[in-house]
C-alpha cells in the first residue's frame, strides 16, 4: 500500500512533468521551424530545407549551434542578474503548462489511472495569469543587468507594454469564465462539452481581445516593440549570446504555445472535437479506437497548431505599431471592448438565470 501511494503521488507526477517538458521543448523548437516555414511561404521563399528532409532537422542544428557558441558576459554587466534573467524568463513559461489539460479521458497503465494533465487546480486560469506575469521580470532584469542602452530601453518598453495589455487580457478571460462558472481548466472544457458549444461562438469578442493582448504579451509582431530591431538592435537580449540568448528565444516561443493553449482551452473547446453536441459527427474522434486520450490530444494539438499558424500569419502580414499607437490600442480600444463584453455577458447570464 505504501509503494502504491508513492507511485501515485511521486513517480507518476514526475514522469508526467518529464514528458510534458520533453515534448514541449521539442514542440517549441519546431515552432521556430514552423514560423520560418510559414513566413518563407508567405514571402514566396523556400524557407530552411538544407538540414534533413525539407529542413526537418533545422531546429536541432540550431540548438547544437547555440549550445556550442561562445557565451559572452559583458564586462560591466551585473553578472548574477545577467545569468539569472534568462532562467527567470523561461521558468514561468514552462510552469504555466502545468495546468493545461491536453486531453479529456484518463488512461490506465499497469492498473494506475493516469490523467492527461499534470495537475487540475480549481483556480487554474488564475495560476496561469499570475505565473505568466512573472516572465516580465526576466525581461526587465535582462535589460537592466546588461548595463547597456538598447537593452534597457527595450526592457522599459516591454514592462510598460506587458502591464498595459495584462488588463484587457484578464478581462477577456472573464467572459468564458462567467459562462463556464469555474476557473479550472478542465472544468471550462467540460462546461463547453455539457453546453454543447465552443465558447468561441458566444464569446468571439473576448477571443478577439484575448488574441491581440496575447500577441502583445508575448512581444510578437506587430507588437514587438521591446525588440524592435530597426530601433533597438535586438531589444532586451542585445547583449546575450549562446545558450542564454536561446533561453530568451525559447521562452518567447513557449509563451506563444501557452497563449495558444489557453485560447484553445477557453474558447476552442480544448480536447473536444468540432461541434461536441452533434452526435452524428462523433466519427471525428477517429483515434478513439486506439484510445480516447489520443483523439483528445490530437484535437488539442491540432487547434493549438491552428492558433499558432494564425499567430505567424499575422506576423507575416502587419507592420510594427508605433509606441503611442500601441498604448492607444491597449487602453482606448481593447480595455473598453473587453470590459463591455464582461458586463454584457454577466447581464445576459443574470437575466437568463433569473
Amino acid at each position, binding site marked *: 500500500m505504501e509503494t502504491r501511494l508513492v507511485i501515485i503521488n511521486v513517480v507518476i507526477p514526475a514522469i508526467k512533468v518529464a514528458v510534458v517538458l520533453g515534448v514541449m521543448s521539442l514542440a517549441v523548437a519546431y515552432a521556430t521551424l514552423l514560423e520560418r516555414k510559414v513566413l518563407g*511561404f*508567405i514571402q514566396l*521563399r523556400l524557407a530552411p530545407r538544407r538540414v534533413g528532409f525539407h529542413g526537418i532537422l533545422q531546429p536541432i542544428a540550431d540548438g547544437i549551434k547555440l549550445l556550442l557558441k561562445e557565451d559572452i558576459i559583458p564586462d560591466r554587466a551585473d553578472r548574477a542578474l545577467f545569468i539569472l534573467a534568462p532562467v527567470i524568463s523561461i521558468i514561468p513559461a514552462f510552469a504555466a503548462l502545468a495546468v493545461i489539460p491536453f486531453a479529456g479521458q484518463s488512461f490506465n497503465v499497469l492498473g494506475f489511472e493516469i490523467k492527461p494533465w499534470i495537475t487540475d487546480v480549481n483556480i487554474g486560469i488564475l495560476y496561469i495569469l499570475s505565473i505568466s506575469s512573472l516572465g516580465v521580470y526576466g525581461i526587465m532584469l535582462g535589460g537592466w543587468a546588461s548595463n547597456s542602452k538598447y537593452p534597457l530601453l527595450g526592457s522599459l518598453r516591454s514592462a510598460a507594454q506587458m502591464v498595459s495589455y495584462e488588463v484587457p487580457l484578464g478581462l477577456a478571460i472573464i467572459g468564458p469564465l462567467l459562462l463556464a462558472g469555474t476557473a479550472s481548466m478542465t472544468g471550462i472544457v467540460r462546461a463547453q462539452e455539457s453546453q454543447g458549444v465552443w465558447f468561441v461562438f458566444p464569446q468571439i469578442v473576448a477571443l478577439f481581445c484575448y488574441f491581440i493582448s496575447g500577441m502583445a504579451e508575448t512581444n510578437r509582431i506587430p507588437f514587438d516593440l521591446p525588440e524592435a530591431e530597426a530601433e533597438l538592435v535586438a531589444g532586451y537580449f542585445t547583449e546575450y549570446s549562446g545558450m542564454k540568448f536561446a533561453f530568451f528565444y525559447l521562452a518567447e516561443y513557449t509563451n506563444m504555445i501557452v497563449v495558444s493553449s489557453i485560447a484553445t482551452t477557453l474558447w476552442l473547446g480544448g480536447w473536444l472535437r468540432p461541434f461536441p453536441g452533434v452526435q452524428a459527427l462523433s466519427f471525428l474522434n477517429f483515434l478513439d479506437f486506439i484510445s480516447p486520450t489520443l483523439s483528445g490530444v490530437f484535437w488539442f494539438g491540432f487547434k493549438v497548431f491552428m492558433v499558432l499558424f494564425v499567430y505567424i500569419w499575422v506576423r507575416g502580414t502587419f507592420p510594427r505599431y508605433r509606441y503611442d499607437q500601441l498604448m492607444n490600442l491597449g487602453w482606448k480600444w481593447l480595455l473598453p471592448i473587453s470590459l463591455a463584453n464582461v458586463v454584457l455577458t454577466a447581464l445576459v447570464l443574470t437575466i437568463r438565470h433569473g
Partner: protein
Amino acid sequence: MSAGSLGRKFLLVELFQGLSITLKNFFRPHITMEYPREKPELAPRFRGVPRLRRDPGTTEELCIGCLLCEQICPDDCISIVVDKRPGGKGKMAKSFIIDYERCCFCGLCVDPCPTTPITAIYMSHDYELSDYSRQEFITQRATLVDGHPLKRYEK
C-alpha cells in the same frame, strides 16, 4: 467620416484584406531557385562567353581570320594570329585568344563576323567561369571551340 468608412474601420476590413493577401501568397509556388541544383532556363539570345564554332557539316573551323572581331572589341580582349589555311584557299586563325578577364559580354564581336550562314564567333550559353588563377581566363582556341571545362570546388 462617412458611415461606410466608419464601418470599415470598426470591422477592420483593411486588416482582413491584408490577411487574405498573405494567405493567397502562402499557397502560391515559391520563386526561389536552388542554384546550382536547379538552373535557370536561358533565353535563346542569352549572351554567355563568346566562343568559336566549327562548320556543322564538314567540322572545319569557320573562322577565316578577317580580324573584324579583334578590331571591334571594346575591351581589346581578342588577339588573333592569321595564317594560310592548309590544303585550301583563304586564311584561318593560327592562334585565337580571348581574355575572359577583360571580356564584357557585349556581343559586338558577333555582329561583324562575315562567315555565312552561321557566324564563326558566337555568344554561347556558358556562364559558370570561376577558376583558381588569372592565367586560366586567357582562353586558347581549343577551349574556345570545345567549350569551357566546368571546375568544381575541391578542398
